[in-house]
């Protein structure tokens, strides 16, 4: 087919930045439109008109089915790669009239376990955030560690961490589960102390306990305790996950949906599987990336749980308004969406209503 006539080729690539009214969380929806009129949607944290122009050049003449091949080609615009990957797969699914998880060889499950990333500095704030999430069906929660005052933490800090986790479990019941999110803030020594203190608490895992500045540092934490460790939200390359696996420093891989899209995380999951290690993609964005993550979850064998930001009611209304009711949680699990592609119902009027005006 002559260039320019292929109905699957890109006609237009546009970005729509939005902002949640309560949390202030920003993300950008990307619309990839084909000559034939199909629209695929993806999501990235942010972009610029210059990046978009560059991406349009790189995508010219490419079919969305070449979503794996496109990845490397898009190296010059790393912030857009994940979003374009989602949009391409959305289109591939629409062409195939199949949900993305089916295009990718799934489903491997009927529903996907979900976890709310709750927020708050004090136990009271955390309880409020957790209660909101529990009401929408969550049974697992990612909890931020308290802010650290010193470089090395004393016993009071460790007791404080343990105390707030016990308060949360007491309130949510023994069948609730928790990830403790270290946010990369602790030293390896403190991370190991907290990991040891919480061994019998049975966290799902301790997330990003310390920075992955070098593998020896994280190996210290993983070799001293049996609390499972999660790493990966800041790792942009799959080789970083291979290093963590090889160093036996990680129990659950946390590739960021906003950095890796769908197909790169599938490749990272394939790597993890041979180490008997599962994947729980990190996600702090909007509903389009949630939809992408759920299709991913239903296409791989070693998915464990999908993190979704816990949001206030007004933010939840916005998320539903712009993309459809993607984040439906029941008894701790997210439903799969069997509609073709990513199964989104994007409302462009709502995108304008919630437009990020800077």
């Amino acid at each position, binding site marked *: 087919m002559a260039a320019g006539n292929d109905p699957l080729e890109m006609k237009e690539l546009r970005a729509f930045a939005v902002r949640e009214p309560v949390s202030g969380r920003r993300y950008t929806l990307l619309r990839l439109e084909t000559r034939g009129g199909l629209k695929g949607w993806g999501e990235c944290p942010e972009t610029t008109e210059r990046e978009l122009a560059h991406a349009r050049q790189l995508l010219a003449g490419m079919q969305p089915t070449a979503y794996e091949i496109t990845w490397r080609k898009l190296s010059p615009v790393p912030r857009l790669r994940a979003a374009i990957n989602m949009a391409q797969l959305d289109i591939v699914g629409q062409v195939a009239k199949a949900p993305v998880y089916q295009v990718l060889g799934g489903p491997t499950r009927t529903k996907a376990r979900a976890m709310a990333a709750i927020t708050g500095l004090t136990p009271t704030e955390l309880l409020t955030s957790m209660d909101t999430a529990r009401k929408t069906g969550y049974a697992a929660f990612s909890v931020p560690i308290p802010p650290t005052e010193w470089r090395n933490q004393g016993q009071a800090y460790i007791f404080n961490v343990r105390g707030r986790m016990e308060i949360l479990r007491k309130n949510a019941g023994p069948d609730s589960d928790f990830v403790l999110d270290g946010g990369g803030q602790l030293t390896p020594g403190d991370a190991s102390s907290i990991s040891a203190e919480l061994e019998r608490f049975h966290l799902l895992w301790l997330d990003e306990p310390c920075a992955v500045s070098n593998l020896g540092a994280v190996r210290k934490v993983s070799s001293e305790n049996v609390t499972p460790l999660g790493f990966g939200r800041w790792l942009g390359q799959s080789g970083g996950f291979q290093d963590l696996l090889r160093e036996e420093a990680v129990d659950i891989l946390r590739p960021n949906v906003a950095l890796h899209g769908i197909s790169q995380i599938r490749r990272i999951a394939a790597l993890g599987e*041979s180490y008997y*290690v*599962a994947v729980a993609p990190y996600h702090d964005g909007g509903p389009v990336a949630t939809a992408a993550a759920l299709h991913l979850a239903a296409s791989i064998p070693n998915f464990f749980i999908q993190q979704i930001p816990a949001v206030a009611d007004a933010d939840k209304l916005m998320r539903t308004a712009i993309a459809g009711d993607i984040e439906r949680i029941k008894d701790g699990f997210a439903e799969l969406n069997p509609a073709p592609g990513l199964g989104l119902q994007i409302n462009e009027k709502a995108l304008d209503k919630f437009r990020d005006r800077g």
Partner: protein
Amino acid sequence: MHRRHFLGGMAGGLAVAPSKAAVDCGCAQILAQAPAPGVLDRVGTKVRVTKMKVFGVSLTPDSDRPYVFVKLETNQGVVGWGEATLEGKAAAVMACVNDFSEFIVGADPMQVEHHWQSMYVHSFYRAGPVMGSAISGIDQALWDIRGKILGMPVYKLLGGPSDPAGVRGYYHARTSNPEQLQALRQVAKLQGITAIKSGIPGYYEWIETNAKITRAVKAMQMLRENLGPEIDIGIDFHAKTSPSVAAILVKEVEPLNLMFIEEPCPPENVKAMARIARRSTTPIATGERLIASYSCRELIEMGVVDILQCDINHVGGITALWKVGAMAEPSGISMAPHACEGPIGGLATIHVDAATPNFLVQEICSGIQPEDKENIWAEWLGFPAMRMVNGRFPLPEKPGLGFELQEEALAKYPFGGTKPMARVFHTDGSVAEW
């Protein structure tokens, strides 16, 4: 004859020069020099295997683990029996046994090591459970013949016994009910049983919840509480757990002083299991799914295991199980062979146990009360093959593996075909290990 088969199959059995097509692999030179089975005839005996028969035996028509028995007949009238049972893959292993008939029929059955090497090495692809089980069946039958011709039970040929009273064994608990466990403790004491094995409840995901981890720990604590401190307790994780989950469990049950935790994670990945073992004092046992001694090297060398559990029906028979024991001993690793198939492999493994200095305990997949299958075994063999007396499996005293078996006895239990093993799924429908 052998060479003709390789080179002249299409020419009505006549020897022909290798065609150009046949030498394209670059191995024609090797094939031309391929030794016939009788290559060691000059230093061998006049005994020859004259026939090989394979029996699929389903105790119930829908059994997912029909026994696969191998019978070798010889020109001396002596016959040998072996077991090649491979759970869930019966027809495949029967076909594989038959694939080896050219290796065995016409061969001197006394040269068991030579034939083991030939079956394993000349199969090129090496290992795998189907081939490992097929070799196991043939190997056991060769040992049975050897013992009968040399007039000794196999354990004596192997340098045993370590204890004339037999080899120590364990039964499965078959209950998780506290009262029944207490009753089991009493019966075990009366019968002199010193070890019991059980499992952990449910199926486990890659990462586990507080509820599931707590339940598993409580189940193990409950076993110790009700069985008491005198009985050694093994707990089989059956590779249901990931390394991340198993690491938590084996550390948390350290105060129970278990005899072992078995298969804390699947077996393909030795470093993953090492990561569990490194962070706990609970002894780790594994090996029932491993084929040939080669597959045990990393487990031994990396200090992963305390106990190896290779199965005589899969690892490569008597020859291979003995080698695993030999290579484990210098590292202080004990042997506790798996046995969950039929009575021939069960008896064969007792012979190896009795001659193994680093032997710990022998499994039988049965409860302290004899089960239906054992009544059938007794009907076949004329004695209760795998029942302990004073906590030990008695040693078979007749030459060879120590039993007589008539083909007609098996006819009541015709092969019902291969049936899949259990298929279990998590709450979200994804595939679970059992």
